[in-house]
């Protein structure tokens, strides 16, 4: 078994295989078609923004990529290999972590417990194997290390999440994704519930995660944020990818026009930008 990432490096000159790909995804709810043959490409180390008008189907696309819904047709590929993502756990097993806009944390539980929820560490030896005892000190230490790595200013991982501000809570959710994400981190409107200053912190976090070489999918309504962090912008319209543009090639108003259909994309942009 060879590491797939090594394969892409060996074939110098060849087009690198996208980390996460979707081909011809379709999802219908009765008469409504939420995803109408959508394609998607995320390349190694990039921040890809996904934008689209309300009802364009971008959240259905993201749900398909994070395992929250299973498409009726089409393929999802990780490192060029088809995968089935039926549930958040399956996506996690493939190294895909998602941060949700509505702060998917449990307020009454402490930070370390939230960070390791569903992936708890057990003690070594008989206490862990037979009595299934958790290793609370180790989870606390590692949680604090993850928070410090991202420079999230929270002292102790044993305080309940409900004592934190909205921005700090989202920081915990991002730290969880960064701690366990091995391939991709998807952020679904991570700043929607936050104020201006705290949104800026989340944008900093996205840049930090990219600087580690981890690709990020950012779903956002906030154009200035998108233009600040995105390497490429995936524009979703009428249930499929309308264009992929680079922020340096297009202005904000052009991107909005592409999103609403007022402006036609170039052939290259329509083909996915690369």
């Amino acid at each position, binding site marked *: 078994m060879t590491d797939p990432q090594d394969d892409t490096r060996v074939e110098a000159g060849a087009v690198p295989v996208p980390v996460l790909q979707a081909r011809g995804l379709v999802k219908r709810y009765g008469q409504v078609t939420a995803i109408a043959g959508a394609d998607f490409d995320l390349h190694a180390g990039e921040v890809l923004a996904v934008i689209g008008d309300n009802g364009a189907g971008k959240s259905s696309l993201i749900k398909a990529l994070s395992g929250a819904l299973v498409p009726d047709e089409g393929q999802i590929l990780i490192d060029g290999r088809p995968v089935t993502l039926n549930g*958040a756990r399956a996506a996690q097993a493939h190294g895909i972590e998602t941060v949700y806009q509505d702060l998917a944390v449990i307020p009454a539980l402490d930070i370390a417990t939230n960070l390791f*929820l569903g992936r708890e560490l057990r003690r070594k030896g008989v206490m862990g194997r037979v009595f299934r005892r958790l290793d609370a000190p180790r989870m606390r230490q590692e949680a604090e290390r993850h928070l410090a790595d991202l420079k999230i200013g929270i002292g102790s991982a044993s305080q309940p999440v409900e004592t934190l501000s909205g921005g700090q809570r989202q920081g915990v959710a991002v730290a969880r994704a960064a701690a366990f994400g091995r391939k991709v981190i998807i952020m679904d409107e991570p700043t929607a519930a936050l104020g201006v200053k705290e949104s800026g912190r989340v944008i900093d976090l996205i840049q930090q995660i990219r600087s580690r070489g981890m690709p990020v999918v950012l779903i956002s309504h906030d154009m200035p944020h998108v233009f600040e962090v995105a390497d490429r912008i995936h524009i979703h319209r009428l249930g499929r990818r309308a264009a992929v543009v680079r922020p340096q090639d297009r202005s904000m108003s052009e991107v909005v026009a592409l999103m609403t259909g007022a402006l036609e994309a170039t052939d290259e942009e329509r083909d996915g930008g690369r």
Partner: protein
Amino acid sequence: MTATLPAQRASRRTDVARLVREPLFGPLLALIVALIVFSSLTDSFMTARNLSLVLQQSVVVGILAVGQTLIILTAGIDLSIGAVAVLGTIVLAKTAGTEGVLIGVLTTVVVCLALGALNGALVTVLRLPPFIVTLGVFTAVAAATQLVAGSTTFPVDAGPLTVLGKPLTVFGFPTTWGVVVMLLVYLVAWYVLTQTSGGRHVYAVGGNRNAAQLTGIPTARPLFTVYLLTGAIAVVAAWAALGRIPNADPNAYQNANLETITAVVIGGTSLFGGRGSVVGTLIGTLIVGVLRNGLTQAGVDNLYQNIATGILVILAVALDQFARRRNS
């Protein structure tokens, strides 16, 4: 030297604030106040014999309250728990009398676990509200108990079925095996809830089911498990009940359902789920036991005791509600 003083004072002040915010502070304070008040009212209250009696009287409801705590932590409620335990005593005494103790115990375990699994399946698979599910099961089980019993009671022979009523002395304190078993049930529940991932998932599902689902926890598993475990706890409670009174009576423990909820709520566990502990429930059980025993010693009528317990429950729920509003 003088510069460190305000800091020290501040840290002492936050220590006090933390103590007051500690969820067990209120229930513990209430228990201590009740003990002081009743020991000053009557001479007969603060004796080893009487305190032992308080514990023995609390055993059946105390054991059931552990199951109720697990379910309330998931933001559910079990109105059938007492009725299932009463059916358990009837099945245990009746089948043990005709088929022998082993068959009797096995039958009781199957019946109680099946009823727990039924509650759990209706709540998790069909996603029905726990209040309605357990109300329906309560009504059906109460009627089934009368049918099985056929308006008679079933005395049991002294032996393994009554062993939990046997006296024993621990460090000079007179008690029964039933009390020991009750404390063991609390110990196991405390360990599972605080020291294992399954316990954390119970809190997570009760605290925010949607978020728990998104983090990848299989939320149906902890939810179903608490109802199943409550069925098992009902078996232990039925056993303890035969230890206290070796005669299975279909009309016994009529208030057990509500008394378990009372103990859980007074113990500081939130009816909205995700917050609380079995340690709190043990204290809640003792508060109710002390209140009833103390008021009886003081010559207060049983009906007034019910009024006092009712006021206590409303007070506890009100405090929980206010705390939640302040947090959000």
